């Protein structure tokens, strides 16, 4: 064996080991979700799947209304990701294609967003929701998240590299700025749009603290809170099999979004890092 192939085999071995180690917790969750309560407390712990997944899921469904929570999480994640993308596209277009009074200041205001994550303004934001009568509504779950520095920076970076003759050509052809925006700029931004969608969808799907505070009834909860409720409803010992059935369901949407849009996502990130 040459030194090179030996080295390659070594690399493969390490990578495969890493893949297994990283995946193990999720494998474990999958197995647990298929066991009966008794099997889940077997000693030594059982690592082969059982056949109770549907029963466990049904139980979780009944206890905390997983179906409704799943719907809520999906709705807020999709809507917020889309609105954030649109706002970021419009703002990035303005900042890169126009010159206007107060541009620098207005841009700084947008940049401040990343220094003001929800926890640093959480109490007044909550009070604001209360004054709008938004507590326990989809508005409260979504609207405070609509601003996105990530998106603005992503599109701005990209639009600064768009050759100047593109808008010039559009202008010569008599296309106004908005037509240029919809027909030229948006189509060439597809990769970045997909990348941002992945980032924002996963970000929203993971929200926990804010939904915990602004929702008061079980039908307005999100799926993350549902899992906490399953865990808290334990009587003697946590029913990991039921909790894991809900966990597996809660894991799926962001994973699917990431895997489906993987190519654009990775490319979008690469563009962002390239400068």
């Amino acid at each position, binding site marked *: 064996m040459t030194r090179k192939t030996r080295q390659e085999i070594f*690399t*493969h071995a390490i*990578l495969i080991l*890493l893949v297994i180690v*990283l995946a193990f*917790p*999720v494998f*474990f969750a999958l197995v*647990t979700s298929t066991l009966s309560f008794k099997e889940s407390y077997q*000693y030594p*712990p059982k690592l082969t799947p059982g056949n109770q997944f549907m029963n466990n899921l049904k139980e979780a469904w009944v206890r905390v209304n997983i179906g409704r929570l799943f719907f809520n999480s999906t709705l807020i994640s999709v809507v917020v990701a889309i609105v954030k993308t649109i*706002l970021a596209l419009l*703002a990035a277009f*303005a*900042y890169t*294609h*126009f*010159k206007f009074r107060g*541009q620098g200041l207005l841009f700084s*205001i*947008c940049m*401040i967003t990343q*220094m*003001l*994550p929800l*926890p*640093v*303004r*959480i*109490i*007044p934001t909550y009070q604001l929701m209360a004054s709008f009568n938004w507590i326990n509504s989809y508005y409260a779950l979504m*609207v405070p998240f609509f*601003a996105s520095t990530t998106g*603005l920076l992503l599109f701005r970076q990209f639009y600064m590299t768009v050759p*100047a003759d593109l*808008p*010039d050509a559009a202008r010569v052809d008599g296309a106004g*700025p908005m037509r240029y925006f919809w027909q030229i700029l948006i189509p060439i931004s597809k990769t970045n749009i997909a990348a941002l969608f992945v980032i924002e969808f996963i970000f929203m*799907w*993971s929200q*926990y*603290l804010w939904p*915990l*505070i602004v929702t008061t009834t079980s039908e307005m909860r999100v799926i*993350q809170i549902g*899992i*906490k409720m399953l*865990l808290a409803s334990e009587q003697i010992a946590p029913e*990991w099999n039921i909790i894991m059935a809900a*966990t597996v369901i809660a894991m799926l949407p*962001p*994973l699917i*979004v*990431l895997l489906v849009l993987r190519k654009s*996502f*990775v490319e979008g*990130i*690469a563009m962002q*890092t390239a*400068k």
Partner: protein
Amino acid sequence: MNEDKFPGHKFLPYILITPSIAVIIIFLIGPFIQSVYTSFFVSTTFGTNTIFVGLRNYIRLFSSPDYLNSAVVTFKFAAFVIMVGLSIALAIAQLLNQKIRGVGFYQVALIWTYAISPTIAGVIWASMFAPSTGLIPYIISKISGGYTLNWMTNGQLALFIVAAAATWKMLGYNIIFFLAGLQNVPDEFLEAARIDGANPWKSFWRITFPLLSPTTSFLLFVNMLYAFFQVFGLIDIMTHGGPGNATEILVYKLYRDGFIHLNTGSASAQSFIIFFVISVVAIIQLRIVTRKAIYSR
């Protein structure tokens, strides 16, 4: 910097940014200012009145052992998540940045943890580590001949396990960014170093690492925000800040003081302190990135 590509449309740019600016002013800047203002007041027992107390909320916090403990816990937790997380991610990204077969598969198989929510990571790790019944305590007791791993009674251990779970979840994200950064390091540089006889280790530290600094500093900032805020769900699921207050990071304390104990003045002061810390880091990060930009010109 940029020219006006559509001269004659004086109002359009303002219309385009209005939605963003409106959201930022109404839901971010407004509440933030309100929060700073509230931090100078305490509310009376029944919440009907507020009394101006100047800096007393801040002074109280800095002389409260609980708060200082929470700051230390946050620092340790964030340091672990950042140092361990970024080191492992960079090593894996470096492994992935080679011309080997199946690299596409490995990429996907190593970045997907990014899609796992902190809460989900928390619940899975909590079940794996469940004292006396979980898989990991079982394995450890088998290997060590009877050692019982009970992190529910051992604060330092609890902090370590919570930090490890948080790091695991973030690995995918960090790998994606490091890999993108590594792929932008020009091959010629490394080739030149190799010809000059530099070993891989040396050329990594002398060439790759400095060129990666914008990515690294960006990840540093993102991971800090993650360790400060987004892990709230993970902590809430795994430990509730316990045992004692061994895993009570600042955001958890803020939640408790603000929403359980309804001490809005103190919670607002805590908000401002966190804001101050992340602003300082954000400014440092920005400096590193801009300095880098000057280099490459």
